[in-house]
């Protein structure tokens, strides 16, 4: 009542705050109090309905020890609590192991190929294979994936062929991305993997939007959005968390906390309890897991997916791991971290080693198979690599297409200008490497 008086267009002066007006306000307010005896018991602000306190206490950041890290295996690969063993069948576990090691092999060869000048750029996934495979295996193949750039194992799990990885890195005519982007910017409609883009965190609110569309379409799918702990500092991450909760979207946020954003360690990235602590603040169910424990990742993702699908609300998983490799081929991490630290993580609690230990315990794997598989991996990768390297680049006319759904006049004219220019100056352009223009 008093409020509406003050928001009317009337101009207030001291004259207006007459006793008669004030007494009218007080009378009405008193009436309101009498009608609800509970007004003093709890705060009733629209923004929060918690409790009153008369203690001047700040909630300090070290209020608690931090959200615990869920695990299934110990560092050596032994199941700790048999009840948490997902008891996946042999074929699934072997597939998990093989996809992780195939990825690892592909990484080694592609990294080398960049060093040799065969491809322009590459990013490895060393140490984080468990986060990819564990989560991908727990999803439905039709769940839409938004990645950051270090999730090749998800594609590997879903059966994205080696040739397509290579074709994208080489930007040859086999690349369905038509050679438009730098290496490792994979995408595939058949594998429900949205094409990677370089800007960080942009995929996060997009994942939320797609999840909203899925919810409306009632297609039974969820969306998973991968991102690093560095990326979680971006504004788009905050936006995504907030939108996902307020708009009730079936989206799974999967944070790969690998300790570094290029050279920036987590101590310079955040001061709170990692990324996980932020989830509940946004109204999001959250769990922190050992990202190097494939079964923990699997269990957490499976449970999280169930929540998103059945309850149409977001879930946040923070998978703790370690980036064993450099940020990319443009980085030499010895400039900011010790070789010892890296060696330590490479030789203990490695996701691949732990899964192998489990498989050996189950008698599903041995040294002979290991050697045979290693050789097979190398052969597959090398052959695919050679195929990709031999292929031409797409027709350079493709530089001008797909800007819009159809080529508008002004872009077509730009192509025609360039075609005439190249015809005249052909010896200065790498035309021979490209498929001939029609």
């Amino acid at each position, binding site marked *: 009542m008093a409020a509406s008086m003050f928001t009317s267009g009337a101009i207030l002066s001291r004259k207006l705050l007459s006793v008669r007006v004030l007494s009218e306000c007080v009378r009405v307010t008193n009436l309101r109090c009498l009608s609800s005896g509970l007004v003093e018991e709890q705060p009733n602000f629209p923004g929060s309905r918690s409790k009153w306190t008369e203690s001047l206490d700040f909630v300090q950041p070290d209020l608690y020890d931090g959200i615990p890290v869920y695990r299934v295996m110990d560092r050596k690969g032994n199941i700790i609590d048999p009840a948490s063993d997902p008891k996946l069948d042999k074929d699934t576990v072997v597939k998990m192991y093989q996809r992780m090691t195939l990825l690892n092999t592909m990484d080694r060869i592609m990294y080398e190929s960049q060093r040799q000048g065969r491809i322009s750029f590459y990013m490895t996934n060393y140490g984080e294979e468990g986060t990819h495979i564990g989560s991908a295996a727990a999803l439905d193949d039709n769940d839409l994936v938004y990645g950051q750039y270090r999730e090749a194992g998800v594609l590997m799990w879903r059966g994205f062929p080696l040739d397509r990885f290579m074709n994208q890195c080489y930007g040859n005519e086999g690349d369905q991305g038509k050679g438009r982007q730098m290496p490792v910017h994979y995408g595939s409609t058949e594998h429900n993997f949205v094409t990677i*883009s370089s800007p960080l965190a942009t995929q*996060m*609110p997009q994942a939320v*939007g797609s999840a909203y569309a899925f919810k409306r379409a009632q297609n039974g799918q969820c969306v998973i959005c991968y991102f690093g702990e560095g990326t979680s500092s971006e504004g788009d991450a905050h*936006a995504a968390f907030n939108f996902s909760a307020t708009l009730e979207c079936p989206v799974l946020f999967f944070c790969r906390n690998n300790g570094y954003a290029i050279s920036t360690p987590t101590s310079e990235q955040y001061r709170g309890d990692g990324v996980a602590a932020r989830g509940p603040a946004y109204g999001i169910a959250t769990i922190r897991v050992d990202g190097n424990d494939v079964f923990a990742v699997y269990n957490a993702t499976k449970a999280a997916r169930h929540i998103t699908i059945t309850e149409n609300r977001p879930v946040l998983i923070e998978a703790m791991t370690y980036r064993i490799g450099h940020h990319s081929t443009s980085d030499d991490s010895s400039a900011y971290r010790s070789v010892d630290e890296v060696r330590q993580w490479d030789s203990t609690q490695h996701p691949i080693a732990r899964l192998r230990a489990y498989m050996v315990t189950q008698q599903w794997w041995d040294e002979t198979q290991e050697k045979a598989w290693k050789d097979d991996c190398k052969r597959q990768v090398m052959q695919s690599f050679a195929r990709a390297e031999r292929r031409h680049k797409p027709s350079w006319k493709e530089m001008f297409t*797909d800007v819009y759904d159809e080529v508008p*006049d002004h*872009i077509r004219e730009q192509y025609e200008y360039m075609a005439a220019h190249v015809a005249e100056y052909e010896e200065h352009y790498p035309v021979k490497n490209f498929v001939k223009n029609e």
Partner: protein
Amino acid sequence: MKQLIRSPVFKRLFRPVLTSSCVIGKRSSHFTYFPDTVPESQGETVRLNLFQSINNALDTALATDNSAVVFGEDVGFGGVFRCTIGLQDKYGKDRVFNTPLCEQGIAGFAIGVAVGGATSIAEMQFADYIFPAFDQIVNEAAKYRYRSGNLFDCGKLTFRAPCGAVGHGALYHSQSPEAYFAHTPGLKIVVPRGPIKAKGLLLSCIRDNNPCIFLEPKVLYRSAVEMVPTQEYTLPLSSADILVEGEDVTLVGWGTQIHVLREVADLARQQLNVSCEVIDLVTILPWDRQTIFNSVKKTGRLVVAHEAPVTNGFGAEIAAAVQSECFLHMEAPVERVCGFDTPFPHIYEPFYLPDKWRCLSAVKKIINY
């Protein structure tokens, strides 16, 4: 409460102390609205203003496309400019809804909705606040199809934002940001001049398979009233409208400025005996170069006018393209009448805008070149 308002005490206390005679320089708009009309063949019409015609277009989009969703800040109750009034009641909260106050979130979410297979219509409350979304619009939406080799796209995406001078908007409620986005291949940018155009153009943008930015001149929301066809219709994008045919000078603009230029054409005829051809560009990107080129080749003289600051405003693109294509036909250099290179001011707005006197002066200058 009502009793209180009716009481003589209340009336005496709240009697206005200011009368219109106290005000220095009463505000009036810098333009006269020139309504469009449609031929009878278009069928039944209804009197609508700009926000009503936009509301009508959104209503049509929601009615004809079950996947369509409309969202943004305060969109649920009808929007701060009433463009979405009644839509939440009619189509439900899952289709017409508020988002949190976060433009980068709105844009990213909007892209994701489109990628997820739904028709995505996002409102930015003011074009002045679109900048947090710049990364998502320029780096993501515009490039989605290209960078993925056409595997993915966000074609079914439209951003709507009120733009332009409104008399008192100052720095942050008056901007015309078309030039920033026009520099980004992959986007479409459209500016309606009135209700009839707005309904058809907005529907075209929504149905177009490319991400579109639909900039709505806010000063026209209430003041622009036309007899708008009740039936559903779309209007072509990238097609400029020759509103007045002329022989001596081509005048190009968009949005509110078209109405300024229409008046300039009248004044030029009356005062200077000069015949002006007035063209509404309508779509800023991709823009209809052919219509402009043809006109300038005929008249030999061009004035481009826009509210946005002159340096690197879209007038610069038109001027550069025209002088390159029409050089030998030109009788005078291209004149740009634009906002000055300052932020959009509050109290100085009458001095800032490319008003009819500045435009007429430009015509005079190039006629006598």
